[in-house]
């Protein structure tokens, strides 16, 4: 038996958007490759509901998975791969995807392909397209081992339509392992609605904002008006206009939204590396020759302190 296993991540029982996105993609790949699709999750979440997006079966490892544990996650995933007899595993390129799944690959002798931005069936095999070299080059990746584990950048395929039936859930037995790493403290920041790496819409500000106060007065209201998560360039973070957790770029978060609005950001290579796959990029900048302009679908050349408030007004009118 072989098939595709999709790992569905959830926060307290609510599936992340990537779960439906990956199940739907797996369903279309499975049809081409002649493979069944099973969706699996760790902990207490209604995984059978993801049958709506085309999974034929669902599996779950139940238990107390309150705090994130690398070794529990790796063990639970390995147990699901074994139970399903999966030859292809699709998972989000999340913290857990990057942290725990390489261990699973090493344990099983599987091929590990990280951070894919496209997946296609080609000649009866799965081929992944993915960035390398800070996004300056893209490559095809193929796995020759019996099992291939692929992590996929969120928002690579967009939100699918549901409509399929709920499927039955099979429990997968997993004896919890003792993790020698103990979480002693968890600091949750003043939360943004949606994490940058999963956000559909992002508004980012750069050094041109000039101060933290002006960043807060100009960028955050635009974020609120658009229903967008707020990000920042490295220059803005280094100048303490925004916290490190909001940094987009090579040394910050890699994002992949439908809409990315870059305000007062010149578009240094290190910033582009973190956001260049965004579907629609808008640049608001007083310099018509800034590198970001080459990547923008729409640009407004002007003083951001005039343009952004006007944009907030226009959004309220619309």
């Amino acid at each position: 038996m072989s098939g595709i296993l999709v790992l569905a991540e959830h926060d307290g029982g609510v599936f992340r958007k990537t779960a439906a996105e990956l199940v739907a993609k797996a369903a279309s790949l499975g049809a081409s490759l002649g493979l069944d699709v099973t969706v699996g999750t760790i902990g207490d979440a209604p995984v059978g509901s993801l049958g709506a997006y085309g999974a034929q079966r669902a599996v779950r490892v139940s238990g107390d998975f309150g705090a994130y544990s690398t070794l529990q996650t790796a063990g639970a995933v390995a147990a699901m791969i074994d139970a399903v007899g999966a030859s292809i595993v699709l998972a989000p390129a999340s913290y857990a995807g990057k942290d725990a799944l390489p261990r699973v690959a090493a344990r099983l002798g599987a091929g590990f392909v990280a951070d894919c931005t496209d997946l296609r069936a080609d000649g009866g095999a799965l081929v992944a397209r993915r960035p390398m070299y800070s996004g300056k080059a893209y490559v095809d990746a193929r796995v020759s081992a019996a099992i291939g584990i692929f992590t996929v950048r969120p928002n690579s395929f967009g939100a699918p339509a549901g409509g399929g039936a709920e499927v039955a859930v099979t429990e997968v037995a997993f004896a919890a392992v003792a993790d020698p790493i103990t979480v002693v403290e968890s600091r949750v920041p003043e939360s943004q609605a949606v994490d940058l790496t999963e956000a559909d819409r992002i508004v980012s500000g750069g050094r041109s904002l000039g101060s933290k106060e002006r960043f807060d007065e100009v960028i955050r209201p635009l974020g609120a008006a658009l229903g967008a998560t707020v990000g920042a360039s490295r220059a803005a973070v280094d100048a303490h206009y925004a916290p490190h957790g909001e940094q987009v770029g090579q040394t910050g978060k890699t994002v992949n939204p439908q809409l990315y609005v870059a305000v007062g950001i010149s578009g240094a290579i290190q910033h582009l590396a973190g956001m260049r796959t965004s579907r629609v990029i808008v640049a608001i900048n007083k310099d018509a020759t800034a590198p970001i302009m080459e990547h923008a679908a729409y640009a407004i050349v002007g003083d951001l302190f005039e343009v952004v408030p006007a944009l907030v007004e226009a959004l309220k009118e619309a």
Partner: protein
Amino acid sequence: MKIGVCVKSTPDTAITRFKYTSGNDGIDAAQVKFTVNPYDEFAVEEAARMKEAHGGEVVAVTVGDAGAGKVLRETLAVGVDRGVHVDAVNTDSLATARLLAAVARSEGFGVLFCGKVAVDDQASAVPAMVAELLGWPHVSVVTAFSTDGATFTASRAVGGGVEEVVTGALPVVITAERGLNEPRYQKLKDIMAAKKKVVGVVTPESLGVSAADLAPVVTFSAYADPPERPKGRVIPGDAAEAARELVRLLRDEAKVL
């Protein structure tokens, strides 16, 4: 204690555009400058600080060709005592991890520091694989680290802006995030002293890693530039006009509102 640190020679990705080999099965390495992977610099610094606090020896390890060995030598001026150059090709993450794990075993490392990602293949896979092969735990994307030589405390950025503080016992593999520390600059006297330090060259055979263990299970092909974007447009008018037109375009044309 022997403090291990993994170092990779990676191309300077500030280059505007890569050129590719004739079969598009790789970048044209002759066109690019190779340096220490930026995240490995934080790993090297953390290893050096641990030695300064607790004593021991800092051993940096790399896998690659003669050029990688040269890049490894750069770390000898910033706190590394000795280098181990595994003379082999980086075929895929798992093969590289097997070589690094073999070095960690033969050296008897008590801890291993790595960068959180190598900017060439961007897989973020090797450190966790090494930990798995060694049977050690690992902590990834670490922004703060301290140890008393037997136990450690580390902060990790687990996504969603959440920072977790974790504790455990050595040995452990730690992957360094930017901000873990401020790497030191090379000083002239350290550069001079580095010339006397040794980089030992070892082969996969001498580490007991077979050709079968090094056969890649992931292969890469069809290297190309990122997909081109259609040419964008500048929206004319004063701030209010341009803003209204932008909202219309985002809603009616791009359909993202």
